[in-house]
């Protein structure tokens, strides 16, 4: 067990190295002169040179990578070109709305998707099952931002029951305003996540329902509800949890879009502002931040199995 945990932790290192190398090479291998692209159409030669210096592009590439990795290992994600602030500081300022939105979305999605998928599996082939599957195909097809605008149009502009846009912090403005502002973004972002989790839950529960121990449980007269909850769902949990972990990558992309639709001042908006301002170090820092976060969360999920599911022994 301990060797497995150790092995699994060590396995994340090459992945992180690949991510870092890739992000590092992205800037260096970009066609044309990235410093000129970042500087924009109206930049003078001095501007371009200044940006090149700031990105460290004038040194030999090996030296660049060495210095850059050294900084990275000390937790330095780079410095913004325009505000001259460390990217980690900018991330810290904007992280609260993003993390809370991600959290409400994951909670809401699981609460909706797991029961939906379980019922669909239990009544496989029925109209309930077909509508769940239809919803999941639809959920993968509707763009996040279109859904966002439809929800704003219906609930904010026409029915006027929820605020149009913006964000309120639960720590400063109280829980009520926070929930009112976070509801539509959460629902918007959840749809694709619900589609994903419901599909996996259904597939996984259907497979478990064919097992011998389910027949045994039914044969000894256990109620269908208990069969589902105690035997089926619990054994189907591992693939469901895995898909939640994989879905976090999806969630990160969705957060950028959702924050843009609902004007939420989080990390997604930080990316977009950086794109508009051509502030590449911020974009690069955020890619590294999100990628490492994703790797660590999936490590955590993998390790959780070994404690939750006694059948998994390595």
């Amino acid at each position, binding site marked *: 067990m301990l060797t497995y945990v150790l092995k699994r932790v060590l396995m994340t290192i090459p*992945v992180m190295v690949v991510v870092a190398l890739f992000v590092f090479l992205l800037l260096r291998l*970009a066609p*044309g002169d990235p410093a000129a692209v970042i500087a924009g159409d109206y930049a003078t030669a001095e501007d371009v040179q200044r940006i090149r210096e700031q990105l460290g592009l004038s040194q030999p590439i090996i030296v660049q990578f060495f210095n850059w990795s050294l900084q990275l290992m000390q937790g330095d994600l780079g410095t913004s070109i325009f505000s001259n602030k460390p990217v980690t500081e900018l991330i810290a300022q904007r992280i609260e709305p993003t993390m809370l939105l991600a959290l409400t979305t994951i909670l809401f999605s699981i609460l909706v998707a797991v029961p939906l998928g379980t019922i669909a599996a239990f009544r496989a082939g029925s109209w309930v099952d077909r509508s769940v599957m239809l919803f999941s195909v639809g959920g993968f097809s509707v763009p996040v931002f279109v859904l966002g605008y439809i929800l704003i149009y219906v609930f904010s502009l026409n029915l006027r029951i929820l605020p149009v846009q913006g964000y309120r912090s639960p720590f400063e403005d109280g829980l009520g305003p926070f929930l009112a502002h976070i509801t539509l973004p959460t629902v918007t972002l959840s749809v694709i996540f619900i589609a994903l989790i419901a599909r996996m839950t259904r597939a996984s529960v259907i497979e478990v329902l064919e097992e011998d121990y389910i027949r045994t449980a039914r044969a000894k007269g256990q109620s269908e509800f208990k069969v589902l909850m105690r035997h089926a769902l619990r054994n189907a949990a591992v693939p469901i949890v895995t898909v939640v972990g994989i879905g976090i990558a999806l969630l990160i992309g969705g957060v950028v*879009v959702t924050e843009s639709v609902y004007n939420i001042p989080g990390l997604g908006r930080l990316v977009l502002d950086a794109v508009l301002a*051509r502030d590449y170090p911020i974009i690069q820092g955020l890619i590294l931040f999100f990628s490492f976060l994703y790797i660590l969360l999936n490590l955590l999920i993998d390790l959780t199995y070994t404690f939750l599911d006694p059948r998994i022994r390595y």
Partner: protein
Amino acid sequence: MAEQSAHDTAAATPMPKGIKDPSVFQLALRNKSVFWGSILLALIVVIAAIGPFLTLDPVALNPMNRLKAPGEAGLFGTDQLGRDVFSRVVNGARVSLIVGLAVAAVAVAIGLFLGLIAGYIRVMDALIMRVMDGLMSIPAILLAIAMISLSGATLATVVIAIVIPEIPRVVRLVRSVVLTVREEPYVEAAISVGTPVPLIMSRHVLPNTIAPLIVQATYICGSAMLTEAILGFLGAGIPPEIPSWGNIMSEGRTFFQLTPWIIFFPGICLAVTVLAVNIVGDGLRDTLDPRIARNMR
């Protein structure tokens, strides 16, 4: 799990050799969702192909006719510069379809190549798969945004930026097929009689990858269209001179409360197109890949 899948796929997709067994595509078309999805898709392709010749100029400005409602001026109204939204949406269909197809084709080609190498050449396996693991942990949209902001937004850079995050999934799929096929008795037999590696690849391994790759390609096509629209919507996609569903919606944001249809029309078109592609994909998966289908049904 993966071992089974490749085996069943091979069994379920009779590869016509000599005997005219027209099954694969005819079988697929017999599937209801493939049939209706294909019809819907064909309709969209026709509109995208000939529509732009029949509609107004999508970039012609008409300042007198700004922000008109649908029906008041043109079928879908006009935007803040007085451009006809209907012609813009019809023209935008081209961008979505081109990006979807291009991304699917390029991602499958590169993924197939790398997957065959990883599956067959043991030394390369670990290297390629670690790189793919790393690539998969980078959020696709952020990676695309970064690449586009470095090299400037053109149709080509947008396609490349969407292709790269899609490659790992294809590589994993192809590799898993190769790993199982190479253990099959008929491949061992081929090796034992001294068949050269390229011939084993093209005659025994490649045909087994076709069915799962077709299914994967349709899903990539659908998600590429969505990503293109998201990039356009965020202002990091196809430049505004070429109308695309993404950048029409992006420009519609400013006046959303006044003229929500500028977002809704292209949005609905995009959703319907992606839905059609995904329905075809689901249907193909059911007919071509019975093992996954059994789990998903």
